[in-house]
């Protein structure tokens, strides 16, 4: 028996996913069975995909052809090939799919009997399948089809709970934005084709002149940037992600927006090749804006999932900063830093997939248990949902880049790559780099505040309503799905070289420079350390040191403090009896200082209104705070109202509803075409 090759594993996995999708439809009548079967198939085929991609990353580099379906239509060949870059993203996708599918076994149970579970699982699996095709397609036409399928399927998932008006509105905004973005991509592909006469993604771009490359760069940054959710084209993201069911949000925020990062690396770095420093500078600029503004908006949100969505914008910003540094370094011929920054940014993409996926699952658990996503209504959940609380705490630490978790590693590497490239004699880029460092620092601090708010207000303190005080822990499978992700976050944070070893293959293949050897130290425990130009850090050592210090401190208290008496009693209430949950620090109150500091950005407004009674003794006082989104108000709303006025007019003039008019349009078109044929 011949050993199974990598391509066989991926073929089997794609086939299994297809079977799973069909099974979900076929078993649509029996909710529980359907959910178990389809998620079970997802887990199995996700594992197959994981095995295949890790084998590819560890094994030989080069292209592996997975499948090829030709058709008689011109240019349309469904051709699948993977290189290390595709394999890395496939691996991340498969890990997330496995965890989310485990979680879904429990999570979807609240749909039983209420919604079409079969349809949901069908969309869910085909959505995963479309992402696999995005990562493996090797010609632009197939890529475009997969990309469009991914957008449409995720649109259907966003509006799955379609009875709520806001979900429909979010879906519409999403589909409009994503279609405009896809149009940019399509124009880019056509320009490429007009010069190279080929849609092959792994072909050569030598035939494309410089000006055309610049135009393609702008088009792709716009197109992929919209999907990634970079500011100022992020507008759909904070609406669409909260509207989708939580397991889908985890996939969308975890991996779907990374398909845009994949696209940027694949088309710009790999296919076109970086030529100008300003390409990198533009990406860094977009990254800075996204990172700082994304987290600033996140801090203002009271809806858990909206907060997480804005935090995704921030993390995309960090990834774009890393990518921008890589582009700049490559344009100037510094391949080592280029490779290092590329590793940093892809590593952050990987890490963000794990912890943001986990956080969205956590938000789903909270919603599952309490029925609300509003932070202001939660509180004290740590007592009723201890495991969920612990896992969300892990993810929060990871996303805030606290040491033993993985978020720290990638942000640290991003910093390192920037520091490694700041050198005298190039004032322009240096200023940008210093700005990027400052932005990263600011974003990091605000992100930490943001997640202190998320965790502190919703999990600590007292329950803010009667219903919240009686919630129960979510099913074990849901926590198991999140638990795997949390364990991965801890593992990758403590032994970062495991994942960097895998990512190094990507950089090695794309840039031709491996930096893995320079990242290793020589100590016993620090075999897993990272060492770069004199700055070395070993997360594992830090973890051990932390543990030892904690133990020592406890010991010292025991030894020197003597015996102490522990008394459990309510918090001292200054003699004011009956502390209740309304006296707690609120989420709005928590973010207020930041709101005041950044008032130029948030334009806060407040209104106090006395209702009833006399002026001095009103029955009730209402206090409203609001902040406005400057992008929506000054960019999108004016554009939207123009388009709407135009369409209204066009509707009355052109689309009259009369069949005769429509026939006349056809008739006139034919006459014009005939005349065109005569004269041209």
């Amino acid at each position, binding site marked *: 028996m011949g050993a199974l090759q990598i391509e066989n594993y991926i073929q089997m996995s794609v086939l299994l996913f297809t079977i799973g999708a069909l099974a979900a439809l076929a078993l649509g009548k029996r909710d529980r069975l359907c959910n178990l079967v389809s998620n079970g198939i997802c887990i199995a085929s996700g594992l197959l995909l994981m095995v295949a991609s890790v084998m590819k990353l560890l094994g030989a580099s080069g292209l592996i052809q997975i499948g090829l379906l030709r058709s008689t239509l011109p240019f349309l060949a469904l051709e699948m090939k993977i290189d290390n870059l595709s394999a890395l993203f496939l691996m991340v996708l498969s890990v997330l799919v496995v965890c989310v599918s485990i979680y879904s076994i429990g999570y979807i149970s609240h749909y039983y009997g209420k919604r079409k579970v079969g349809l949901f699982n069908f969309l869910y699996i085909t959505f995963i399948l479309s992402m696999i095709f995005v990562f493996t397609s090797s010609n632009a036409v197939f890529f475009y089809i997969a990309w469009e399928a991914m957008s449409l399927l995720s649109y259907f998932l966003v509006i799955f709970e379609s009875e709520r008006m806001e979900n429909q509105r979010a879906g519409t905004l999403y589909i409009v934005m994503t279609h405009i973005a896809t149009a940019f991509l399509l124009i880019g592909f056509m320009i490429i084709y007009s010069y190279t006469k080929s849609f092959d993604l792994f072909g050569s771009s030598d035939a494309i002149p410089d000006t055309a490359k610049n135009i393609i760069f702008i088009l792709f940054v716009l197109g992929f940037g919209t999907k990634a959710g970079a500011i100022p084209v992020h507008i759909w993201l904070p609406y669409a992600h909260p509207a989708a069911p939580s397991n889908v949000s985890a996939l969308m925020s975890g991996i779907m927006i990374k398909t845009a990062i994949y696209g940027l690396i694949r088309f710009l770095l790999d296919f076109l090749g970086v030529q100008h420093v300003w390409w990198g500078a533009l990406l860094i600029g977009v990254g800075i804006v996204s990172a700082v503004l994304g987290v600033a908006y996140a801090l203002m949100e009271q809806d858990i999932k909206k907060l997480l969505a804005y935090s995704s914008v921030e993390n995309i910003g960090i990834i774009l900063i890393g990518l921008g540094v890589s582009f700049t370094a490559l344009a100037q011929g510094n391949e080592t830093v280029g490779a290092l920054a590329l590793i940093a940014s892809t590593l952050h993409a990987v890490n963000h997939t794990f912890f943001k996926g986990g956080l969205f699952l956590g938000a789903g658990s909270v919603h599952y248990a309490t029925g609300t996503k509003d932070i202001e209504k939660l509180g004290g959940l740590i007592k009723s949902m201890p495991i969920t609380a612990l896992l969300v705490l892990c993810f929060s630490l990871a996303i805030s880049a606290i040491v033993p978790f993985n978020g720290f590693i990638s942000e640290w590497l991003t910093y390192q790559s920037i520091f490694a490239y700041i050198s005298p004699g190039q004032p322009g880029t240096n200023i940008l780099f210093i700005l990027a460092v400052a932005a990263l620092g600011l974003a990091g601090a605000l992100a930490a505040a943001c997640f202190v708010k998320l965790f502190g207000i919703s999990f600590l303190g007292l329950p803010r309503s009667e219903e919240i005080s009686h919630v129960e822990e979510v099913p074990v499978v849901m926590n198991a799905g999140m638990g795997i992700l949390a364990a991965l976050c801890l593992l990758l944070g403590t032994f970062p070289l495991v994942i960097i070893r895998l990512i190094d293959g990507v950089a090695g293949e794309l840039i031709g420079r491996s930096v893995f050897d320079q990242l290793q130290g020589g100590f016993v425990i620090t075999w897993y350390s990272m060492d770069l130009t004199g700055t070395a850090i070993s997360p594992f050592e830090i973890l051990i040191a932390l543990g030892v210090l904690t133990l020592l401190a406890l010991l010292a208290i025991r030894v020197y403090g003597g015996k102490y008496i522990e008394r459990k009693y309510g918090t001292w209430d200054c003699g004011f009896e009956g502390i209740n949950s309304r006296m707690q620090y609120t989420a709005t109150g928590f973010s207020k200082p930041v709101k005041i500091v950044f008032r130029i950005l948030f334009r806060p407004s407040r209104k106090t209104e006395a209702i009833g009674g006399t002026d001095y003794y009103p029955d009730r006082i209402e206090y409203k705070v609001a902040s406005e989104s400057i992008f929506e108000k000054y960019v999108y709303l004016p554009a939207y109202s123009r388009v709407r006025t135009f369409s209204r007019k066009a509707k009355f003039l052109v689309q009259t509803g*009369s*069949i*005769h008019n429509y*026939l*006349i349009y056809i008739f006139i078109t034919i006459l014009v075409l*005939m005349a065109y*044929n*005569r004269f041209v």
Partner: protein
Amino acid sequence: MSGLFDTLSVIILLTSFVLVANKRIKSYIKTFRIQSAFIALAAGIMGIQSITSEGRIDVLVVCFVIVVLKVIYIPKLLNRTYSGVEYKVEKDFILNIPILVLICCGLVVFTHFCIASIDGISQGYNDLQIINSVSVVMIGLFFMISRKKAIGQIIGFLVLENGIFITAMFATDGMPFIVDMGIFIDMLTAVMIMGIMVYQISDKFDTINIDKLNKLKG
């Protein structure tokens, strides 16, 4: 032989003029039947020709199918549909008849003007036939625009299809058999569906004037 086909194509074109000049719905169906009969005649002559010269029976079978479908079955179907909905003599057309006929003359001239310049047609023997048959297509489409009642649209569609059929037949001496058959089956399905739709429209709006359909617009 070419002269015979020229004559037939002119007659087919004339029948479409007759159609445009018709006032009553019953006579639309009658004219369509006559036009189809002439097309069947042309196909029959061409079929005999191809049997004697190449031994192919395809075109003759197509001729037979035309007789069965377009001369007998579809007109019968339409008559039944029409008698099922309403019978009232009223003005069914948008402009008056002389102007419609004049516009159709203009269409033929325009088609000649556009088609005659295509390479390979102006030198060939089937110059006149192609122009006439494309004109039938244009007149069929124009007929759909000029009539208010749904039956007018169905007849216009059928005439348009007739035009496409004879264009293909004159240009290629008979298309591949399978293509012709496919088109006939499509057309039959379309007519059946449209017949049902006419009932539906009549049911909903108490008339088959299709300008009432703009109430359906969102």
